[in-house]
């Protein structure tokens, strides 16, 4: 497969539609393209001023809800999704046909119990699943939002706090004055921290999972490999690939493959694949050799079917820019001064992308302001991805934490 990929890279311009079929798994995945799906959404004609100083003339936020909002509107939980996930947290994803990314956690009787709580999940600003992002029409400041071509790489660089401000528009629109809880892992955890810092009175409980208060140099470095791979794809066309009717699928797949390595632990890779060989015919550098290679290639190829390259560039950059302490004169605890929010921090022992030390640093910053904080490291060999997987210790902990908070919040 790698050999075919290599050839595809040198294919003449115009040889377009066939590129995707070179990937294993692509034939099975006959999902509709991103644009064809109508997502539930709400548009805010007032727009949004971004951290970069620019203003989006209007903002659309695509979202899904589960469970029922009570009469007092006091049982709402906002889920913040990670880099490449979306608003389909607890139902079949209309693009991939797969179960929701947190199906295991969210539902009737599950740790985030939709019989007790009203659960909201929205696609992040800059995303490609219905919320305003690089695929949205460029409003180019002309006051005519729908006149333009897609933004592409000209989409303003959004930040994690910008994502949170867009979510706040949705929460206000739903008439919710205080969220019972804001919960999220990885980049979702960054959003949780930003929520607690920006709108402390609107967040009763905050659960940042497997996250950090800033993106480390190592993490930025991994993201940069992905961005360079996308930029180097001949089908990228400086971000205007839509006008050529192509997508930089090779670059995006390589970006995903690199990122995927950071989501799993060495132990998990060794257990799953070890040094097992697959389709190994003779000795060649580019032919399939190891099982782990075809696994990664599958991860890459299935990803390009559901994700937009410009969104990937925008969102990875937003993560890189995240540094909550820097926004408060270098003092992380200053972000939480006077907070009444109840925090639960969770890390996973084998997560080397957002290691336990990062969560502990947040817990200590919260101690500095005498905040109400619980902190648990869950033993797991599944790496960063553990927060999405079946980790009973994590699930029990979150369920109990929410029950305790519900009691303090008077939710019975």
């Amino acid at each position, binding site marked *: 497969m790698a050999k075919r990929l290599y050839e595809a890279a040198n294919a003449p311009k115009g040889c377009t539609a066939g590129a995707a079929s070179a990937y294993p798994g692509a034939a099975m995945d006959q999902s509709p393209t991103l644009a064809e799906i109508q997502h539930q959404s709400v548009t805010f004609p007032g727009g949004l001023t971004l951290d970069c100083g620019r203003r989006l003339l209007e903002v659309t936020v695509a979202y899904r809800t589960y469970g029922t909002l009570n009469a007092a509107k006091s049982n709402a939980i906002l889920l913040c999704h990670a880099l490449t996930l979306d608003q389909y947290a607890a139902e079949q994803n209309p693009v991939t046909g797969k179960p929701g990314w947190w199906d295991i956690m969210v539902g009737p009787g599950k740790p985030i119990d939709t019989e007790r709580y009203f659960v909201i999940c929205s696609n992040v600003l800059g995303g490609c699943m219905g919320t305003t992002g690089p695929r949205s029409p460029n409003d180019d400041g002309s006051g005519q939002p729908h006149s333009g071509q897609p933004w592409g790489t000209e989409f303003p660089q959004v930040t994690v706090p910008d994502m949170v401000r867009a979510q706040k528009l949705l929460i206000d629109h739903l008439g919710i004055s205080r969220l019972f809880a804001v919960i999220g892992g990885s980049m979702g955890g960054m959003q949780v921290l930003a929520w607690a810092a920006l709108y402390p009175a609107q967040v009763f409980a905050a659960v940042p999972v497997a996250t950090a208060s800033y993106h480390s140099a190592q993490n930025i470095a991994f993201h940069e490999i992905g961005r360079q791979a996308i930029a180097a794809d001949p089908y990228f066309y400086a971000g205007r690939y839509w006008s050529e009717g192509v997508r930089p699928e090779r670059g995006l797949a390589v970006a995903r493959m690199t990122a995927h390595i950071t989501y799993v632990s060495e132990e998990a890779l060794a257990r799953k694949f070890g040094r097992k060989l697959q389709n190994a015919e003779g000795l060649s550098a580019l032919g399939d050799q190891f099982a782990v290679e075809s696994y990664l290639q599958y991860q890459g190829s299935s990803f390009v079917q559901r994700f937009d390259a410009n969104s990937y560039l925008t969102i990875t950059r937003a993560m890189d820019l995240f540094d909550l302490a820097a926004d408060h004169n270098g003092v992380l605890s200053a972000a939480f001064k006077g907070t009444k929010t*109840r925090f*639960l*921090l969770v890390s996973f022992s084998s997560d080397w992308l957002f290691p336990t030390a990062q969560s*502990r640093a947040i*817990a*200590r910053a919260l*101690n*500095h*302001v*005498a905040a*109400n*904080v*619980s*902190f*648990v*490291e*869950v*033993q797991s060999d599944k790496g960063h991805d553990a927060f999405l997987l079946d980790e009973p*210790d994590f699930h*029990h*902990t979150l*369920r*109990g*934490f929410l*029950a*305790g*908070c519900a*009691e303090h919040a008077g939710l019975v």
Partner: protein
Amino acid sequence: MNALPKKIRVDLELIAELVAPGSRVLDIGCADGTLIEHLFREKQCDARGVELDMQEVQRAVAHGLPVMQGDADTELVTYPDNAFDYIILSRTLQAVEKPREVLRQMLRIGTHAIVSFPNFGHWSLRLQLLTKGRMPMTAGWNRMWFETPNIHPCTISDFFALCEQDGYIVENWLAADEQGARTPWRRSRKLANLFGEQGLFLLRKA
């Protein structure tokens, strides 16, 4: 969570009696959080915990209690001055690396400190050391010297001396037996030091 009052260990009961209702409490080495739950339910305290053992932390948090994983020796420095009304350290002082520093931190971040520890001055320990010449083994001191976590044993008299040296006011104290029940050695420190299996102290800054 169970709303009915639960029976808790006698020594925890004694500690709870020292805490004023509605106060802010930090319990260091809180195990599964039994005491902080009791203080929340029975005394409407804002009670939180720190615990070293991750299994215990998970048990406490999964029970809805605010507990963070951490070490008394390293975690206390991260709290601001006078953040709590009471800092509790129950049967843990003898196991920390720097007991004096931990006490100092407790009385920095809290206006009161409640400390309990097994009394190494108890007559049975003295007798064993005198007659056998070996490190004593009792119900309370039940691990061999080379594997015990209790690396800083002290007596009730030792503790009084440290409080005096570091300028802490002993607002209340008592000696207890192994189960934590109050013993009658209140009048004499010397008798308490001989017959009390545990010491329990309520301190504040001078």
